[in-house]
């Protein structure tokens, strides 16, 4: 039954993701951040886990990095745990939880957006409904086109580096340079010619085709989800 329901438009999902990002920075209280972090975290993982597994790993790494940073700069207040010479205070735990929830809410909202939209629909809706300038929408479209090509370039560069006796995993600045130089050089040349090709296909003449945003049941659902989170987050203070 759910597969027959139309997905929300990219416009509504984009506005939702943007709103959650703003709330993530506006909310300071852990309870408020917990509402948006948990809702978007679970929904994002449920919808996006299959295609974007690496985001989970990134979130876990971020949480660990945040904790280490918090130990260094926010380790204040009553002591909660002691591990040998390492003292963990309330301030560090509080900062870690707050920042992790903030990251989870933003990442989760982004996962919801990307899981429910097709790249080509993103561009069309952003340009026609959100009136994003044609230069930006072209850049987004080109980035989507380019990403697998750059992945292919990266694989070929890795083979060449392996043959030339370099480490597979870049550790030093010169390792990173040896990957970036060919990637950027190839990308730059491609970009120049794609730009020329776009001009020869009349990009300068392009005018945005305006369209009224669609608002139906799926969009109402997204708006309701957003409002519910705001109400739940602000309720204790009312």
């Amino acid at each position: 039954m759910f597969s027959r329901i139309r997905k929300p438009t990219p416009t509504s999902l984009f506005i939702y993701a943007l709103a959650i990002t703003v709330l993530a920075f506006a909310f300071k209280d852990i309870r408020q951040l917990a509402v948006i972090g948990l809702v978007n975290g679970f929904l994002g993982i449920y919808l996006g886990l299959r295609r974007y597994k690496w985001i989970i790993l990134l979130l876990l790494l971020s949480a660990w990095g945040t904790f280490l940073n918090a130990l260094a700069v926010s380790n204040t207040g009553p002591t909660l745990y002691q591990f040998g010479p390492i003292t963990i205070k309330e301030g560090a735990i509080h900062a870690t939880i707050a920042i992790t929830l903030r990251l989870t809410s933003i990442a989760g909202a982004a996962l919801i957006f990307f899981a429910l939209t097709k790249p080509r629909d993103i561009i069309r809706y952003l340009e026609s409904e959100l009136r994003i300038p044609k230069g930006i929408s072209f850049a987004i479209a080109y980035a989507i086109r380019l990403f697998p090509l750059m992945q292919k370039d990266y694989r070929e560069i890795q083979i060449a580096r392996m043959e030339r006796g370099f480490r597979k995993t870049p550790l030093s600045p010169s390792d990173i340079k040896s990957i970036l130089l060919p990637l950027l050089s190839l990308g730059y040349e491609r970009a120049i010619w794609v730009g020329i090709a776009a001009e020869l296909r009349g990009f300068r003449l392009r005018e945005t085709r305006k369209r009224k945003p669609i608002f139906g049941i799926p969009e109402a659902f997204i708006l309701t989800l957003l409002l519910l989170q705001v109400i739940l987050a602000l309720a204790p203070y009312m």
Partner: protein
Amino acid sequence: MEPLKFSIEKAGYRENKTVLRNVCGKVNEGETILITGPSGSGKTTLLLAITGVLTNLLEGWVYGKISIAGINPLNFAEFTKIPKFVGTVLQDPDKQLAMPTPWDEVSFILENLGYSEDEIKERVSTALSRFGLFEKAFEHIEHLSGGEKRRLTFASAIVHQPPILILDEPTASVDPWGIREIKRFIRELKNEETTTIVIEHKIKYFLDDVDKILVMNSGKLEKVIEGEEIYSRKTADELIKIGIDARPPIVESKERRIDSEIVLEVDSLEIGYNENKPLIRDISFDLRKGEIVALIGPNGCGKTTLLKTLIGALKPLNGTIKIQGQEINRLKRNERFRRIFYVPQQPDYLFLESTLMKELSITAKKTGKSLEELIGLVPWAKKLGNESPYRLSFGQRRWLSIIIAWSYSTSILLLDEPTSGLDYRLFTELKEIINTLRSRKGTSFLVATHDPRIVAELADRVLFVRDGRLFEIDKWNAISILEGVADVF
């Protein structure tokens, strides 16, 4: 109205550096013309000048007059009108295709020109169907094969039915099967009375279909060839001398003496990405010291996959590979690449440094070869030492990639389409370096190619990939297949 008329006194990219000089010509309505010349002759600069790109986008300059579809492309306001009347197909599809899917790519120009949504839908469907791409309309462009990407560039260039079409080196990196499709496309354009301008150094494929040939050399228009002169043997010989591929290659019949020492042994090898669906099965062949073996077959048949499997970058599905008697999986990584080295089709992948001299220095350091020896093998190394290897000409980058590869492995080099984009003059230079390494240093080569010149003038033996199997065939048969498919004979 003449679709194209140009009278260029001088033109160039940078001030005080002239690239084109006294280039004049005209193209009549419905004509199909070829603009040809060796690499560096100014063909692409002429294309950029007549489309207005040189002056309006690249900050170049032109002294002269140009009129294309009645528009002056040197004037910026008029330059913006060119897309309505001119379709363009650039040399490399990956440097032209900008959108995520074929549908978006073909719609792009129609959206830019203000067509209605209904008309866009109809025209795009028709164009994609014409080129056999409708089924893949909404797939990511990177899932298309090389041939499909090329067809997509055609679809997006003609969807708005422009009266003039320009094709820049359409056969670059295309196999003979793809060239046959390009020829068919050009014939269809001729029947539709589209004025077609083809810029190409491999003119042998198009002699039957063109009305006129403009020959460029060193930035000047050297000659205009029309009528019966297009087919004359004398014309072909003159054009070959300046580096234009004007006739099928002549097979070198003198057989070289090959050493009996086997350097590479492949037995019952199966390659591919899926165990249940190997790309090529039952591969068995050997390579001897100082031998050059050509590996031919259509794009996508598995030539590159075979080369990458031989160096261990991909795991074989079955079978064995032995290098100088030792199984490849028993060799340590560094030891393996001292014996066998793969040179990719795109030479830039191999470069690691910001200048040519640094590139040679790091190669010398890693391989133990002397820097002087490497400089000796690169004739322009001292002159261009401070240039970025990525800014060298394509022929120079190709040359440099082979020298780097040889520095690591003097035994076996695997070259992937090394002549792609090279005119006959540059091919001759490449042939020279390969022959030098083979005869003086005993290096063996396995060359994946669909270039008949390699088969005719370099290879000792030929292996042909067909229907998932590898066969050895003689050189004459190989040439006959490659040139026959492309309808040169």
